[in-house]
């Protein structure tokens, strides 16, 4: 089996992170924004797993599990809020929720 240097993996996770970040910047639908945040979190998780593999420690994997738990919690709160938002604004467009400014 070929061994790839860890940097390749980090580059991959960085690309994933960038995709997620770009999604947060450009998407207007709030559900997609939430999904893109998940991508950012998973990019971080991937980097943790890579780190754990590099140093032969369990810490990286443990952190990944923490991230999964946190992401689940965030999504559950997030979806509940998004339901309220849809209920109230009849829209999922983030531009709709811009009443407070200045």
């Amino acid at each position, binding site marked *: 089996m070929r061994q790839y240097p860890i940097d390749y993996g980090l580059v991959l996770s960085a690309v994933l992170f960038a995709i997620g970040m770009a999604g947060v910047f450009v998407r207007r639908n709030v559900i997609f924004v939430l999904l893109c945040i998940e991508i950012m979190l998973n990019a971080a998780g991937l980097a943790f797993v890579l780190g754990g593999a590099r140093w032969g420690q369990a810490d990286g994997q443990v952190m990944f599990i923490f991230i999964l738990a946190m992401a689940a919690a*965030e999504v559950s709160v997030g979806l509940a809020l998004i339901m309220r938002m849809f209920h109230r604004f009849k829209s999922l467009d983030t531009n709709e929720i811009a009443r407070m400014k200045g």
Partner: protein
Amino acid sequence: MSSEQILALLPILVTSAASVVVMLLVALKRSHGLVFGVTVGSLLVALAAIGSSVSVMPQAVSSLLIMDRFALLYIGLILAATLAVALLSYAYLESRAERREEYYILLLLAAAGSEVLAAAGSYVSFFLGLEILSISLYGLVAYRRQTPLGIEAGVKYLILAGASSGFILFGMALIYAEQGSLQFAALAAAKGSSFDVVSLVGFALIVVGVGFKLAVVPFHLWTPDVYQGAPAPVTAFVATVSKGAMFALLLRYFIQLDLYQYGAVVLVFGIIAALSILAGNILGLLQNNVKRMLAYSSIAHVGYLLVALLASGPLAVSSVTFYLIAYFITNLGAFGVVGYLSSGEREAEEIDDYRGLAWRRPWVAGALTASLLSLAGIPLTAGFIGKFFIIAAGAGSRLWALLIILVVGSVVSFFYYFRLVLAIFREPDAGAQVPYPSASLAGGIALSVLTLLLVWLGVYPAPLVNLLGGMTSGLL
């Protein structure tokens, strides 16, 4: 885990257990008074538990939490502030028809998360504390979920805090992949004269996340919106406890890794501080919404805190902590008054709502005026002493450029603080007077204690200064 370690952790354990107890209590019986009583009681027990923790400190609990003098002081601060927020919340929630009891579960959880942050000695506990705090705050910020502004604030905070968590996590992952450890202490031991590029990027990304929580420029844009949309007591919590816990972590991290020797880091924080002071004060200038105005003012105040942080030396830690305590008291007082005067579905947030307050509610007006004077840094208030120490620390470290900006920013800030003071003391409108809710005992007690502390620290700061004097030595 040894019994000593359990004893050391007692404040955090009590807070966490209290949230579970309150949760079960809500499942059994909905009673606002009961839940409030249990919350206040458990916060008091947790505060008392600090006394027992002091006897076994310093104590490292596994590699995650470090219960030293520094952590305990900040935990005490967090618990006291949470207690004040709880007291201020009771009347506020009582006047609302929505479900009130869950609020206290979230409040206790957020406090627990903040305590973990204050004691964090590793990226793992940093992350856990941060997320416990953040996710509870999502719920709290959006607690006025019937109103469009509440939902708007909630969604904004959720998305942006989620993204900033992503930045922090990715930064941590990069550092871990390069350094092979998640401990601050190991990191401090391993660091050479300079870090490799990947670790540097990791640090920078963590700064982004920390900057977001502290609401400093350029990560401040969310602040006024969230402060405005959140219920006033929650705004007080976000402005004080959430920022204070993050600042405690930043301070520990800064000192443990001795980041002062990295010119780039100092430069980045210097620029952030300068921009925060200027932007915060300038944005507050013409603001008619009191909650937004206080939001901008809090951006500037974190800028002042960063100036103290950058002034290295023994004076820095104690001056940062003193200013932070003054900031806590002052902002709790100011937002507390906003919450105290908000009734039913109406937040008292426009500057016109405060017109003639001195004639209608002289005591409340006194508390708000004292808070505003302290924010402006007028002598005989805690804010003055705090600013004095920051300037002294800055002058000791020759941070002249930052000090000039600090002074300019303070001068600008007088305008909007005194604008509100002026409104308070104007003759009330004879015609349409904003209805204020009737006085509440719990809120009144909290406000009086805060105001007394404000003046007391301004007149007789010596005991607290002496207490803080030994802080640096106590840092593990």
